[in-house]
């Protein structure tokens, strides 16, 4: 922690910002230079960075963080429906709602630690998911999902299907058809959407970096290290944990809001526990407890998902056309298991391989490589970056 000076942190942040903003160009050669995918890099990167503040620093493994993502999305869409399609109020409101929700769930769940904590968070997330599909349909529109709709003509009887957008109306914004979210007139789909998310990502990274370097961050790492000592050192870990939980919930809410900004449709499937599992994977893959790792993990998984799920038999045959016919068919048959609809198989294997061989994630892998090159015994066992 002390190994990094303020100057090094600023340099890191500047490089990170430059990289993120230039992704449309730099990642074009590997086929990732289009907005839909890069938006996902930024949004899930934020989700994972926030998750890591809880899991990476305190070691508390939440299996229910997708609930906050979902709540963020719903909150944002409601702002679009009731107030304005401007993205800023939606994002702010979503972050606040997700934070409140996280405070309530965290307050209860943090009474327990270890696997009990994981099960409690899972239970709360599953409850939210199930309720979103059933009783809370007036708020979530159930399976159809919550959407931005046409403005109501005359008195409103059904807020799910008739929007009011009080603020926009008051400002005299003219609407033709169903409007899309915008930032003071710039429509938030495609590239502008990406840049909006990218700026949020950079801000999120900056805040995470401050937290990592602060007294608060050190207390969180102390919680992971030895709670007994911390107790007898005069520190009450509970409020620190709750603060970390709420902050990471707010990151998730922000990610959820951004998903709604680029595509204003919120569905409950975002809250399912598989989605919670995905953010765990992203964090682990990149490197738990590191600054950059979670973003890398998120980007890699979204990239791999995109590549692998797009490959079909035709592409495989073309790739392996140089093989003799019989062998070609066999290879395509086997490779076909892992791509297209079988992408999840690759994901599962990736999951296992990482946990088995590289528990520290990609960041540890880089570190090992660096050490191999430098061949200098590093007394500093620091894993930040």
């Amino acid at each position: 922690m002390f190994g990094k000076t303020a100057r090094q942190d600023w340099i890191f942040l500047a490089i990170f910002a430059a990289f993120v903003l230039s992704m449309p160009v730099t990642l074009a050669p590997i086929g990732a230079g289009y907005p839909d995918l890069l938006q996902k890099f930024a949004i899930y990167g934020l989700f994972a960075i926030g998750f890591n503040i809880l899991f990476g620093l305190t070691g508390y493994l939440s299996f229910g963080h997708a609930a906050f993502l979902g709540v963020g999305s719903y909150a944002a869409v409601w702002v679009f429906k009731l107030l304005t399609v401007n993205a800023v109020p939606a994002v702010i409101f979503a972050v606040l709602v997700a934070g409140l929700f996280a405070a309530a769930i965290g307050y209860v769940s943090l009474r327990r630690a270890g696997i009990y904590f994981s099960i409690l968070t899972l239970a709360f997330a599953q409850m939210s998911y199930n309720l979103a599909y059933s009783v809370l349909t007036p708020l979530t529109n159930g399976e159809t999902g919550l959407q931005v709709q046409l403005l109501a003509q005359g008195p409103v009887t059904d807020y799910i299907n008739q929007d009011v957008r009080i603020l926009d109306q008051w400002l005299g914004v003219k609407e033709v058809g169903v409007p899309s979210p915008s930032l003071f007139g710039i429509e938030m789909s495609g590239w502008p959407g990406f840049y909006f998310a990218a700026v949020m990502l950079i801000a999120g990274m900056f805040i995470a970096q401050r937290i990592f370097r602060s007294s608060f961050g050190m207390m969180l790492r102390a919680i992971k290290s030895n709670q007994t000592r911390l107790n007898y050192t005069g520190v009450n870990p509970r409020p620190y944990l709750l603060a970390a939980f709420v902050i990471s919930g707010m990151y998730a809410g922000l990610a959820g809001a951004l998903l709604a900004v680029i595509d204003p449709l919120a569905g409950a499937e975002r809250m399912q526990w598989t989605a919670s599992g995905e953010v765990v994977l992203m964090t682990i893959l990149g490197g738990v407890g590191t600054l950059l790792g979670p973003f890398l993990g998120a980007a890699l998984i979204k990239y791999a998902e995109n590549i692998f799920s797009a490959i079909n038999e035709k592409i495989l045959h073309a790739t392996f056309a140089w093989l003799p016919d019989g062998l070609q068919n066999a290879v395509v048959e086997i490779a076909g298991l892992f791509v297209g609809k079988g992408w999840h198989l690759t994901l599962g294997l990736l999951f296992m391989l990482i946990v088995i061989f590289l528990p520290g994630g990609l960041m540890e892998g880089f570190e090992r490589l660096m050490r191999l090159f430098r061949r200098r015994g590093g007394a500093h066992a620091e894993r930040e970056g």
Partner: protein
Amino acid sequence: MAAVLRIEDVHKSFGGLRALWEVNLDVEEGRVHAIIGPNGAGKSTLLNCLIGRLTPDRGTVTFEGRPLIGRKPHEINQMGIARVFQTPEIFEELTLLENLMIPAMAKRDGAFRLNAWRRVTRRGELMEEAEHILEEVGLAEQRHRVSAALSRGDKRRLELAMCLIQHPKLLLLDEPTAGMSRADTNNTIDLLKRIGEKGITKVIIEHDMHVVFSLADTISVLARGTFIAHGKPDEIRNDPKVQEAYLGGVEA
């Protein structure tokens, strides 16, 4: 002198087993008070009753006139009581300097303070103090090492330093030299003597008579769950009851 720590009529049993009964003790300010006794005499139980890990069935424990029983460990620490464990409890994954910063911050900021923006390294006064204490316990060269890499003796020294940085009014030491070599033990005794000059009240629970007689001003002997003798080291050494408890050590 006034008693800082006062234990009155403490009883504790586990099921049918009486671990402590009619335990009374006054620890005077600035003194080094050793509690000795054969294995199973109830020393650890007593200590755990002091620091909030166990709740006695009966009796009171007061520190500077304020009751300790029912308080949480972090509240007890905030009152000015620090504790060294039998097996060192330190933050193994963190560096030595960080290990010291945490108790220093706990002392400065209280049980909770959300300080998520300012860099730790900007808190210069705390850094300086941490460096200073590391110097004092002889671990300054290793300040950037991860503390898991320390030897057992050094870990204990680190833990002691973590307590000292808080400037406690009362320091509880649970077998501070257990498992140490003779040389390490003597180093620790010297260290404890040096910090003794600062006037911190200390309660030492110890097995090793060499340590006890080198350090203690007052000794209390616990046997079969109650105190059988209090006194100056010389008085204790020649007390027949004590000799019987140790030599006839049936309860060992």
